[in-house]
C-alpha cells in the first residue's frame, strides 16, 4: 500500500484528524528521538525532547509553511528543543562528554565499539551548533541544501561549520589516542 505523503497528513491534522497525526509520529519518532539523543546523549532527556517536539508541532501546525518540507520544519524544532534542553541542564550534566579517558593513546587498542563510544563522547565536547550539523549530516543523512533550510543558514556556512566540526572531532580523538 502506498504511504500517504507528509503534506496530506498535515492537512488532515489541521482538519482535526488525530489518526493522521499518529501517522506522522510513527513516521518520525525515530529520527527525532535519535537527533535528540545525539544532541543530548541522555536517553531520558532525548525522550522528553522528542515528546515536546511533537507537541509543539501539533500546537503550531497552523504556522507550518507548506512550501517547506515537513521534516525540515520538524527537525528544526527538534534541534532547537535539544539546544534549549542543553541550556536547562545543570553544569555537570551538560559537560558529561568531558569524561573522556585521558590515558595516553598510543598504548590503547580500541576496537570499533570503543571508537564509537569515544566519538559519542567527543561529540558532546563540541559546541551545540557544530554538533547540530554533524547530527543532520551523519545521523539524519541530509543534504547540504536540506541542512541549510533547517538551520536557516547559507549552504556555504553549513559546509564550513561541518568541516570545522569534523576536524574538531578528529583532534579530540587524536588527543585521546583514538584516531
Amino acid at each position, binding site marked *: 500500500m502506498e504511504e500517504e505523503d507528509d503534506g496530506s497528513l498535515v492537512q488532515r491534522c489541521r482538519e482535526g484528524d488525530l489518526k493522521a497525526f499518529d501517522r506522522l*509520529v510513527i513516521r518520525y519518532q*525515530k529520527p527525532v528521538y535519535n537527533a535528540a*539523543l545525539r544532541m543530548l546523549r541522555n536517553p531520558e532527556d532525548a525522550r522528553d525532547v522528542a515528546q515536546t517536539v511533537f507537541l509543539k508541532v*501539533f500546537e503550531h501546525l497552523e504556522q507550518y509553511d507548506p512550501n517547506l518540507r515537513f521534516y525540515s520544519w520538524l527537525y528544526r524544532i527538534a534541534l532547537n528543543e535539544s539546544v534549549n534542553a542543553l541550556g536547562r541542564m545543570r553544569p555537570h550534566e551538560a559537560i558529561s562528554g568531558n569524561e573522556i579517558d585521558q590515558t595516553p593513546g598510543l598504548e590503547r587498542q580500541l576496537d570499533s565499539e570503543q571508537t564509537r563510544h569515544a566519538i*559519542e563522547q567527543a561529540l558532546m565536547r563540541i559546541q551545540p551548533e557544530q554538533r547540530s550539523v554533524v547530527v543532520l549530516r551523519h*545521523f539524519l543523512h541530509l543534504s547540504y541544501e536540506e541542512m541549510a533550510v533547517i538551520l536557516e543558514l547559507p549552504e556555504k556556512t553549513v559546509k564550513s561549520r561541518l568541516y570545522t566540526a569534523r576536524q574538531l572531532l578528529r583532534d579530540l580523538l587524536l588527543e585521546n589516542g583514538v*584516531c
Partner: protein
Amino acid sequence: MTELRTLALIHAEIDGELDARQRAELARELLAEPQFRALRDDLTRVCGTLEGIAAVEPPPQLRASILAALPPVAAMPAPPRRAAWASAPAARWRYAALFAGALIAATVLYKASIGRGPDANEMAGTMAGSAARSTLIVDTVQVDLGQLTGQARLYRAATGLQLELQLIASAPVDVLVASGGRTQRISGLGRPDSPGGPRTAIALPDPGPGAQTVDLTFLVGGRQVGAAQLRVPAGD
C-alpha cells in the same frame, strides 16, 4: 594549492561530491603533502565511524505518551480554509447567531445540572466534546507511573472549570478527584480502544476567590499507583 582548498577537497571527497578533475587535483596534493594524507585518512575514519553508528529505536511508550499529552481537540489548529458560505457577510451573521444560540443553550443546561448536584460519589467520565471549545489552560501535570502514562489538565471552558484526563494504561484506571471539599471517582479510564480514545473530561465545582488545588489519586486494579496535584491560581 592553498590549505583551505585542499581541506575543502578532502571533505568533498568524504561527502562523495568530487568530480574527476577535482579527484585528480586532490590525489596530486595528497601525494605531495603527507600531512594532508594523514588528515584525510583520519577524517575518513571519523566520518566512517559516525556513519556506522546505528540509529536506536525510540522507547516503546514514546508514541503513546505523545498522543496522550496532546491538548484537547478544541485546541487543534483551525483548518486554514473555511467553507465558502462562511465568508459571505450574511452567512457570518448566521454563523454568529448559531454560536450564540448554542452558548445560551449550554449555559441553561449547565445551570440546570449544577442545581441538582451529583447523585452519587461515583460517576463515569464524559468524553470531551464541543463544549470544550474556547478553552484556557489553567494547569497541566504529566503522569508517568510506569504502568500508567498520560496527562491531567485543568482548563477553563465556557461552562466552567474542567478537568481533562488523557491516560493510557494496560488495565482500567480509576481516578479520585478531590476539589472544593468534594471527591468524585471516575472509573474505567486508560483504555486506548475506548470510544473517543483515552481522553475524558469532567466539570469541576467553580473555585472560590482564593487559590485552589485539585488532588488526583490514580488506582489501577483497585490499588493506588500514584497521585498528582493541579493548582487553580487565586482569582482564576
